[in-house]
């Protein structure tokens, strides 16, 4: 029998899920989202060498490279020869041997999943007959899969305990190995240990060849996957334009303070928010038009008040993804972008957690496994900036500037009765308050701003996999509350909004044939709100209102209390047709949403007569279609078109302050783009888009509006632009991206009005983000941001109101000037300490606006509007913090 030696091609999947998604095609996972993070690569459990036919005379090493499909049971279900040896019989032998291999199955997102890997046999000719010693020699080389450069310092260890370290040529040699099948482990500082098996025969010298994809050392072991894995299950590729950032990368971006979700602000297509705002304006859509989901659960906000922190602890976050537009049929009810926060799987052995402290807040998390089936994760965070201020300043700073107080908490328990089933129960809480008092000797100038917002979510997340099919069900219930108690002199501005939210997302994903991925599901959401509002119609101003910062509020007072119910049940279906050997993907989708909006009060409160309600029903049909063409291995083209609807906001359905008859607004989005993979880690992507929205609510311009029509429906919007993204994935210790968004967003307040700039239009947003692992536990990062200023309406004069003894402005052309452009450079440095196997400490310094550039954030005027100046943003802001994790 011929003897065979083999080398195993080990090409790593980059730890960044973005590339994972680019390479992987996975079925829609929990919550209808597609994910593809390899949490465990396949390991050879039983090795089978090819049997060289006797009639094959092999006089030199023959190589057969195959692509093999490994099922969830670890068995090889399919093997195809990619590169043959030139000897068909030998190729057949290799294929037969590969089909007999057995693996420990790979895991995607912590769950066993079928995968494809490349596998290479190197079959050597029989050695000439000689005296057979009773031991074998094991030699070989280890090279970088990407650069083909030899890797020095790699430890090759046999299960016998024998080991060797590769030299500068990447070569190693272990002599005197007991014949037989041995486990081989490769380990090194730049990649996760890799396990395989080799069979050695006495008297033979085995020459192995290992190619390893080097990953950055800072990537945690559990997040790495070092096999080039192509996931078998065809991904439903409806994400035509998306940017996803892993938790590990997001936490290292300068300016985020280690908060993963804060990275969204730096992604292409997102406008820079003003200081203390935290509003996420995506592709020129309103901040409320962008939906945020956490593993399929809709939450009202991503950030705490002021935008300091996100509402989800970073330790529970696996990745954050932004789809600025053109997303698939599984999501709706928003005219803007889609932000999906993927939670980290809990299924990992042992207990893990962290404690983080800095000048603003502290947080802690704990994850653990009660047994093989039950796992849990809890996390919480609480701010104390107000407490710190009270102790280091002599004045009550909170009386002069709004200091947000917040806390959030999350708890999750998962149950995995078998490898195909998981059930998770989770809760999310967030609470914010701002209390800002500004006293004055003038009774009309006494101001108080008090705001409380909170939300909670309770959800179940059930995932069942059967063969290649996946069923996901996410029911949830939640409570949102906003309470505003502002007063300006004698003019109140009060709002209470208590909402109970019910949601259900369920999906079934299957591959009826290998080249089609199909998903169908329902997306139900109902919100029952109870609201009261007191004050002026125009306070606070809404988008499109002519106003300036600090302007006297209208001394008008009104009141309304009303209830609304908004419910939509949207069945949807989408498919991904993979054609021409996976080069062309056609992704049609359809979402049909019957929607009910019920308002308790059609007319303002009057006398003691009972209110008369109003109900409207609409059925929205939202077709979506996307196409992705992999022109070559490096070049990709894409296009998408879709219709999107958004129900009216409960606050706008007041008969006094809004219009109870408002219906859904809609948008038609078109995008086209291309991607070019410059190298393994480096990619470039350009996307152009046009979004045309209509039926937007806008303020009635009439001197005498009709009752219950303070808002009208029929505003239009249009936004168009191009975004560029040059991205370097986490390879060779570096990751980063350069993004440029050129966007113009306009609004028209009624069919006869002129187009004007959207209040949050930002023409240019340029961001450079980079982070480098220096080694020895040090990493450094930097972020540079440049953005156009928001448009503002100039004040061209002012007239005095003698009743209130104040001036009110006369305005020029709406939004015809801009706040000066913004730019800032942020830097971040961190030092990581390891204490034993588990304990790690990170100390970091995050310095925002390191050049101390005075950025103008808002225009202000003097008392009679004859002088104009600017409120400048934050000065240099160093934040020191530490995180202890285990």
């Amino acid at each position, binding site marked *: 029998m011929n003897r065979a030696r083999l080398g195993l091609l080990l090409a790593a999947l980059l730890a960044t899920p973005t590339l994972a998604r680019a390479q992987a095609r996975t079925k829609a996972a929990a919550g209808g989202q597609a994910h593809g993070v390899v949490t465990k690569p396949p390991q050879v459990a039983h090795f089978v060498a090819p049997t060289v036919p006797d009639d094959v005379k092999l006089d030199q090493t023959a190589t057969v490279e195959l692509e093999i499909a490994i099922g969830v049971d670890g068995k090889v279900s399919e093997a195809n020869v990619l590169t043959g040896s030139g000897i068909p019989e030998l190729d057949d032998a290799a294929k037969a041997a590969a089909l007999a291999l057995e693996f420990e199955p790979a895991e995607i997102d912590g769950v066993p999943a079928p995968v494809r890997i490349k596998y290479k046999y190197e079959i050597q000719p029989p050695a000439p007959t000689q005296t057979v010693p009773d031991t074998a020699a094991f030699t070989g080389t280890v090279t970088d899969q990407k650069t083909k450069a030899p890797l020095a310092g790699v430890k090759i260890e046999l299960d016998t305990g024998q080991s060797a370290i590769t030299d500068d040529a990447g070569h190693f040699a272990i002599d005197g190995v007991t014949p037989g099948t041995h486990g081989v482990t490769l380990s090194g500082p730049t990649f996760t240990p890799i396990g395989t098996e080799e069979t050695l025969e006495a008297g033979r010298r085995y020459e192995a060849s290992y190619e390893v994809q080097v990953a950055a050392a800072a990537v945690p072991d559990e997040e790495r996957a070092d096999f080039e894995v192509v996931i078998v299950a065809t991904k439903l590729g409806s994400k035509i334009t998306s940017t996803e950032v892993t938790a590990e990368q997001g936490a290292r971006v300068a300016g985020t303070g280690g908060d993963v979700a804060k990275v969204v602000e730096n992604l292409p297509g997102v406008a820079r928010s003003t200081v203390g705002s935290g509003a996420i304006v995506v592709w020129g859509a309103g901040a409320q038009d962008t939906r945020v989901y956490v593993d399929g659960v809709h939450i009202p906000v991503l950030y705490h008040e002021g935008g300091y922190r996100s509402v989800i602890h970073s330790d529970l976050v696996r990745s954050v993804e932004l789809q600025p537009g053109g997303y698939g049929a599984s999501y709706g009810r928003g005219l803007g972008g889609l932000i999906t926060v993927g939670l980290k799987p809990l299924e990992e052995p042992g207990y893990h957690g962290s404690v983080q402290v800095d000048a*603003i807040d502290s947080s802690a998390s704990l994850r653990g496994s009660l047994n093989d089936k039950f796992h849990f994760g809890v996390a919480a965070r609480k701010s104390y*900036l107000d407490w*710190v*201020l009270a102790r*280091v*300043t002599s004045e009550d*700073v909170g009386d002069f*500037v*709004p*200091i947000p107080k917040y806390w959030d908490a999350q708890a999750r328990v998962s149950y995995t009765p078998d490898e195909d089933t998981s059930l998770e129960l989770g809760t999310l809480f967030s609470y914010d308050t701002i209390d800002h008092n500004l006293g*004055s000797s*003038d*009774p*009309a*100038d006494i101001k108080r701003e008090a705001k409380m917002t909170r939300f909670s979510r309770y959800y179940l997340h059930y995932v069942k996999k059967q063969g290649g099919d996946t069923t996901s069900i996410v029911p949830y219930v939640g409570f949102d509350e906003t309470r505003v108690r502002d007063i300006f002199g004698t003019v109140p501005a009060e709002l209470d909004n208590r909402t109970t939210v019910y949601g259900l997302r369920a999906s079934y994903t299957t591959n009826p044939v290998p080249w089609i991925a199909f998903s169908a599901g329902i997306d139900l959401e109902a919100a029952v709100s109870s609201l*009261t509002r007191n004050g002026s119609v*125009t306070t606070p101003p809404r988008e499109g*209102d002519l106003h300036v910062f600090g302007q006297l509020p*209208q*001394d*008008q*007072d*009104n*009141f309304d209390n009303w209830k609304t119910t908004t419910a939509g049940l949207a069945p949807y279906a989408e498919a991904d047709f993979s054609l021409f050997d996976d080069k062309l993907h056609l992704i049609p989708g359809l979402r049909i949403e019957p929607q009910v909006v019920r308002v308790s009060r059609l007319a303002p*409160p*009057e*006398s*003691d007569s009972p209110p008369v309600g109003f109900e409207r029903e609409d059925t929205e049909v939202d077709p979506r279609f996307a196409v992705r063409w992999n022109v070559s291995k490096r070049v990709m083209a894409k296009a998408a078109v879709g219709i999107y609807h958004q129900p009216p906001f409960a606050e706008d359905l007041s008969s006094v302050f809004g219009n109870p008859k408002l219906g859904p607004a809609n948008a038609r989005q078109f995008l086209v783009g291309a991607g070019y993979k410059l190298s393994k880690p480096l990619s470039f992507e350009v996307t152009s888009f046009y979004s045309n929205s209509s039926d937007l609510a806008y*303020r*009635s311009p*009439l001197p*005498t*509006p*009709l*009752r219950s*029509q303070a808002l009208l429906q029929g505003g239009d919007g249009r936004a168009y632009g191009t975004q560029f993204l040059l991205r370097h994935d986490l390879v060779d210790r570096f990751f980063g991206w350069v993004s440029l968004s050129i966007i113009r967003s306009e609004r028209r307040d009624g069919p006869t009005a002129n187009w004007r700039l959207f209040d949050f239009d930002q023409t240019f947003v340029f961001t450079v983000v980079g982070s480098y692992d220096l080694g020895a536990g040090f990493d450094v990062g930097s972020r540079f941001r440049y953005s156009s200023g928001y448009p503002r309406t100039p004040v061209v004069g002012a*007239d*005095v*109101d*003698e*009743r*209130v*003894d104040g001036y*009110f*402005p*006369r305005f020029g052309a709406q939004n015809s000037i801009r706040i000066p452009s913004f730019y800032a450079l942020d830097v971040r440095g961190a030092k990581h300490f390891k204490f034993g196997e588990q304990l790690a400490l990170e100390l970091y310094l995050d310095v925002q606006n390191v050049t101390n550039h005075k950025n103008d954030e*808002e225009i*202000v005027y*003097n*008392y009679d509007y*004859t*002088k104009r*100046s600017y*409120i*400048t*943003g*934050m000065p240099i*802001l160093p*934040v*020191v913090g530490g995180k202890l994790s285990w």
Partner: protein
Amino acid sequence: MVNALLRGAVVAAVGLVAGCKPDIAGAPSIIDGPRILAIKSEPAEAAPKANPTPTITWSTLFVGPDGNLDPSRLDWALCMARKPLATAGEIAPECLAPSGPDLNDLGAGDSVSNLLPDSGCNLFGPNPPVPMPGEPAPRPTDPDSTGGFYQPLRIADDEPDGYEYAVGLTRISCGLARVSPDQAADYQQRYRPNQNPSLSNVVVDPDQSAAPLTSDPSTTAVVNAGSQVTLRATWPDCPLEPTCGDGICGANEDKNDCPADCTDPHGCAGSEPYVYFDLNQRAVVDRREGMRVSWYSAGGSFEHDRTGQPEADAATSYTDNVWTAPNTPGDVYLWAVLRDDRGGVDWGSFVVHVE
């Protein structure tokens, strides 16, 4: 050191929250050019559809660095247009013009008189015009935070570099709309039209000499150049509980209970109690006016541009401010304008002798 670093970090963090607001020079209390400081309606409040139609006299305080100015160049007009909901200010933009179809000319001078337009409660009050058949009803005007509605007027000042406008508002009594008959009757019975307040006096150093300011340089108070002095503006006390015979027809008095006070009813010239329809509670509730004094001077500077007593402190019938006299001796013009929450106004013009 640690504390200093912490303080620095915290200050920076506060900067993150608040940013830095520029100090734009200038204060409204400094009179460095022609200014209209106040517009008074007499009576302060009237019902547009009263019989006979009330006549209103409007007057203004028009000043400059050298004292009160000749008001003959001021052009008065009532505004008969309603402003859109989201328009800033209290008046329709088309009324801020020298002339126009929505302006009802009142003449020129320091005071003008005219009948109060009887359409006020329709245009600017709770009784919008009757809709066309088949049309929904127009939206009534929202009241101010005291429950009041106002007839706007404008004064145009023909300055060399263009017209400047001042807006005045005359409170109009329109009753309540869309309330129950009981609530309407209760309100009608208890509501008393506003009366202009009265600025009793302004004194220097109220706790010591209490020297009153006058408009005569020979009798007014004397202040040392560069010194800081406390000025106190005082207005009459108003009784919290109605007392028959005090000359004030209070909220809970009527002609039957107290003919002495309510046959020819007068309000109080200070912080008046009044009733207000609370839209939240949908009930008539008792309130009291807050009082504000706007301070102006042609020299020196005030610690505060305006001072006063909010509604919660309405029992206090004075307010203090600190004035820093100029370093140059001479007579300095000084004005104090007293306003109540319901649109009533009074003023005083003074001279301070600085030596």
